[in-house]
């Protein structure tokens, strides 16, 4: 394929995929919401789950963004060092965001800071936000798209604890964020926790954590145990859908971690709302692709 044609083809696919994920939830989230709806016994909470399901059906049928807040667009790229369009990807994703804004249509959510003007295109300085990981020896690229809505971004918080505060301090931090600011962020939330060395490393990992499938587990046994304990514990608080109380609080808790300085524990929480709009797509070197997050997609 001629390079220009290849760039155009990848831009079109990413524009369509970005718009698509604003209208239909990923398979794992859809399944989890269906499970929570079945497990719920509180009649008010049940009726909220019914409204959510009805909303998603209407969005699919009418081909409209399911929530009016289509967020700031973020791409998390895991690209092979030999992926043929590596150098073009940044521009491709800028143009894909412009395209998706028209196709969606997406709400205009990029305000230039300090100038305080809405660009009206969903693009701006460093927006769409790109996060890179380079995979040696590979010629494929996997891209996660995320719509960071206002409501679900607001609870986000990071801090650095002293080692004396331990994982007990991490637990307390997570509970405080979710039971205070999380309540207004359209629960049931997917809670991402980063346990690391400083604020920015923990924050990045906490965001990566909510890109992981809802029911996935951290490979480290202690981290997996903590995911389970936090999930059970938060559910016991009974926040329910929209904070109106119910049998559960969260879709899940995912932890991502790194090694840390012996004197610090960096911890951060990112939240995804019930309308957790993310998508995962993998491109091969010839630009054939596979959508990994949504079953049965036709772009």
């Amino acid at each position, binding site marked *: 394929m001629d390079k220009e044609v290849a760039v155009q083809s990848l831009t079109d696919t990413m524009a369509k995929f970005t718009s698509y994920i604003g209208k239909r939830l990923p398979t794992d989230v859809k399944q989890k919401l269906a499970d929570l709806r079945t497990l719920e016994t509180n009649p008010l909470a049940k009726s909220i789950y019914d409204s959510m399901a009805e909303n998603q059906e209407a969005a699919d049928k009418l081909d409209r963004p399911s929530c009016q807040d289509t967020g700031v667009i973020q791409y998390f790229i895991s690209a092979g060092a030999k992926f043929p369009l590596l150098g073009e990807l940044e521009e491709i994703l800028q143009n894909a965001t412009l395209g998706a804004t028209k196709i969606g249509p997406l709400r205009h959510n990029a305000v230039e800071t300090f100038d305080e003007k809405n660009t009206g295109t969903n693009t701006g300085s460093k927006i769409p936000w790109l996060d890179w990981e380079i995979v040696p020896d590979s010629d494929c690229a996997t891209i996660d798209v995320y719509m960071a809505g206002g409501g679900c971004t607001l609870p986000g918080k990071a801090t650095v604890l002293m080692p004396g505060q331990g994982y007990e301090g991490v637990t307390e931090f997570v509970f405080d964020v979710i039971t205070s600011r999380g309540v207004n962020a359209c629960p049931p939330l997917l809670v991402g926790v980063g346990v690391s060395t400083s604020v920015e490393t923990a924050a990045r990992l906490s965001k990566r954590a909510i890109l992981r499938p809802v029911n996935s587990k951290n490979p480290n046994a202690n981290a997996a145990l903590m995911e389970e304990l936090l999930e059970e514990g938060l559910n016991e608080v009974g926040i329910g859908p929209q904070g*109106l109380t119910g049998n559960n609080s969260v879709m899940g808790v995912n932890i991502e971690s790194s090694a840390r300085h012996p004197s610090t524990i960096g911890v951060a929480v990112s939240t995804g*709302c019930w309308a957790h709009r993310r998508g995962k797509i993998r491109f091969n070197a010839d630009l054939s692709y596979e959508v990994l997050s949504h079953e049965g997609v036709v772009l």
Partner: protein
Amino acid sequence: MKKILQTPIRDEDLESLNVGDVVYLTGHLVTCRDVAHRRLIEQKRELPVDLKGGAIFHAGPIVRKKDDGKFEMVSIGPTTSMRMEKFEREFIKQTGVKLIVGKGGMGPETAAGCQEGKAVHAIFPGGCAVLAATKVEEIERAEWQDLGMPETLWVNRVREFGPLIISIDTKGKNLIEQNKARFNEKKAPVMERIFSQVRFIK
């Protein structure tokens, strides 16, 4: 059976409602958020819509202009009501509005305003913007269009718009405040139990 409120809403329609009750609205629902509140209260400008006995929606919708010049509601979800807390008590007093719809709870000032003015605040489930749009029969008027799409006062004729969960009632009870207190009470013993199982630093 569905409890349906109809605009204009009278005091007696609301007096028997309690926090946690679910109602629906038929009649007119006007979008009204940050700047509209500011213009009325701070700048003392008269609202272009009569809200006596009426209902407002804290929302910034996506609206499409159709070929015949009319507007179509594409997507309309609630925005965080708490942002209007600063103005709502006075807003209720000046306009005589009876039903305020939004997302999340509001504070003690609004609760006081609801008690004084026999009004209620209700929550429409966040994120259900297409569901809400399908309950809008027609956009009858659009006022203060100079404010741009999200802030324009869209006068919607709605049918059985809901579910609307009463979060502040005419007695001044506040559901979300009650819930938050309950969550805080519940979390301490749960955390204690977890602490004993996460002492990974030995």
